[in-house]
């Protein structure tokens, strides 16, 4: 049997008391992709991921991992999923190597290959020279150990719940680099509310809003949604503003800068031609790509 989707959610709903968190969520994750699962805080990302892992009972719908139905309370098929929780918690009295060895023993890796695998992973996440116990680790170090433990048994699906949310820029880059390097061997689903991270590493995305999938598609589909770029012009002499506004009626004056929305490449060239022909001195001319944030705001209608 050829499995096209590694992970498939069909019409999954979940409520906590009267509060409906997931309301008919459906999406699928194909093989060999990094899948960005986007949503605001409290959108239901963690709930979805815990349901996929069988840690949470869903009210209705179905979740399949590698074609097998996920059953609540039962563990995922051995070796199939690696999971990095949003705030990974480890046993503080262990060292990173001891913790990875424990994980490896649970998954049944034999002693010799486990040692090599631990060395490999500790090097990958940059903890190979760390001799201290985990209780002294920073948040970023714990997150990196979290990725290492999730990859110990070479899972076919790696699920990361907001792996970068609480980290500084350096820590975030480290984690994204590790995720990017992991995608050679495994499919990755990672939830986040940081859209720039999505643009950096994901090949597919789904946007969760109010317990429903508001948008789902490839990263190219996302870029196709972009309505254009805007031009921002700061003139050296404010007396020239009128001349430029007259020639470009779409332009509006914001904080002393002229902003031309939805400007094409041609509009940009024409503006530059206009300025140079009339010898109008400028301080700055900027092109602004529409940010992913703005696009998603449009998708969710805010």
């Amino acid at each position: 049997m050829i499995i096209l989707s590694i992970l498939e959610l069909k019409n999954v709903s979940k409520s906590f008391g009267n509060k409906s968190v997931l309301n008919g969520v459906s999406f699928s994750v194909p093989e060999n992709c990094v899948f960005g699962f986007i949503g605001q805080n409290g959108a239901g990302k963690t709930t979805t991921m815990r349901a996929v892992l069988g840690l949470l009972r869903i009210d209705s719908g179905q979740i399949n991992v590698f074609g097998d139905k996920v059953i609540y309370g039962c563990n995922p098929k051995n070796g199939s999923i690696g999971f990095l929780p949003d705030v990974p918690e480890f046993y503080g009295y262990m060292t990173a190597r001891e913790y990875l060895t424990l994980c490896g023993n649970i998954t049944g890796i034999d002693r010799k290959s486990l040692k090599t695998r631990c060395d490999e992973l500790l090097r990958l996440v940059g903890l190979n020279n760390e001799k201290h116990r985990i209780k002294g680790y920073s948040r970023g170090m714990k997150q990196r150990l979290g990725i290492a433990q999730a990859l110990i048994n070479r899972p076919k699906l790696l699920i990361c719940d907001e792996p970068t949310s609480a980290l500084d820029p350096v820590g975030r880059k480290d984690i994204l680099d590790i995720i990017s390097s992991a995608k050679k061997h495994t499919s990755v689903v990672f939830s986040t509310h940081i859209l720039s991270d999505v643009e950096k590493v994901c090949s597919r995305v789904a946007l969760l809003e109010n317990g429903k999938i508001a948008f789902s598609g490839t990263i190219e589909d996302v870029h196709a949604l972009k309505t254009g770029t805007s031009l921002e012009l700061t003139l050296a002499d404010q007396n020239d503003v009128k001349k430029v506004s007259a020639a470009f009626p779409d332009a509006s004056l914001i904080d002393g800068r002229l902003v031309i929305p939805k400007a094409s490449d041609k509009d940009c060239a024409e503006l530059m031609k206009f300025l140079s022909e009339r010898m109008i001195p400028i301080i700055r001319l900027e092109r602004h790509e529409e940010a992913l944030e703005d696009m998603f705001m449009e998708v969710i209608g805010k």
Partner: protein
Amino acid sequence: MKGFAAFFAKEMLELVRTKKLLIILIVFIVVGIMNPAVAKLTPALIEMMSEDLASQGMIVGKVTVTALDSWLQFAKNMPAALAALLIMFSGIYTSEYSKGTLIPLLTKGLSRSCVILSKLSAMIIAWSAAMWLCFGLTYFYSDYYWDNSQVHGLLFAGFGWWLFGLLMISCIVFLSSFANSAAQVMIGIGAFYFAMTIAGMLSKIKKYLPTRLLDSGVIFKGELYASDCIKAVIITSVLSVIFVAAAIPLTIRRRL
């Protein structure tokens, strides 16, 4: 099985590294030495106080101490030592559930019953080692200073305490399958013990209750025999098994 072995090794490492095992052993060793020591020192203490007592009109005669006094101390001190052990273990499950430390391991295929049983095994090992060490120390010193042969049912009384401890540990396992904190587990254990004590006031059911096994003082004096406690032994064993057996499906259904 591989999950059990790996998690059990982790539990033992935890007991050692968090110094829980050390503290438990120290408590039981101190109690084990104190039992004969207090008995040994009693005559000297009473003699020291005899002048005060005499001024209050009490005349103290010669006090003779035997191995029985040492073992009566054992019966008196054991509840406090067991309570200390239960307090140490009350959060063994709930702290893992609340911190989320089990999540990465469960998603790797570790079964929840392995978690329950390996923690149970670690607790039983710690309790057995501590309790029999305490018993052994009291036995050795009581025999060294006096003569243990004057005391009745020593091994059975020790076994009774050990079995009662197992029941209490099984009770932790059961309560932890739905409790959210160590405090809730402790309250549950307290309530269970209190209920048994209240029920024990009715003489009709007293002989069936696990608390019967705690009457070691009466056993040492030869006023209660092992044969009188068989029903209590059976009920305690069955109850322990039921607690653990019930905890497994409850924990599997528990939201983590």
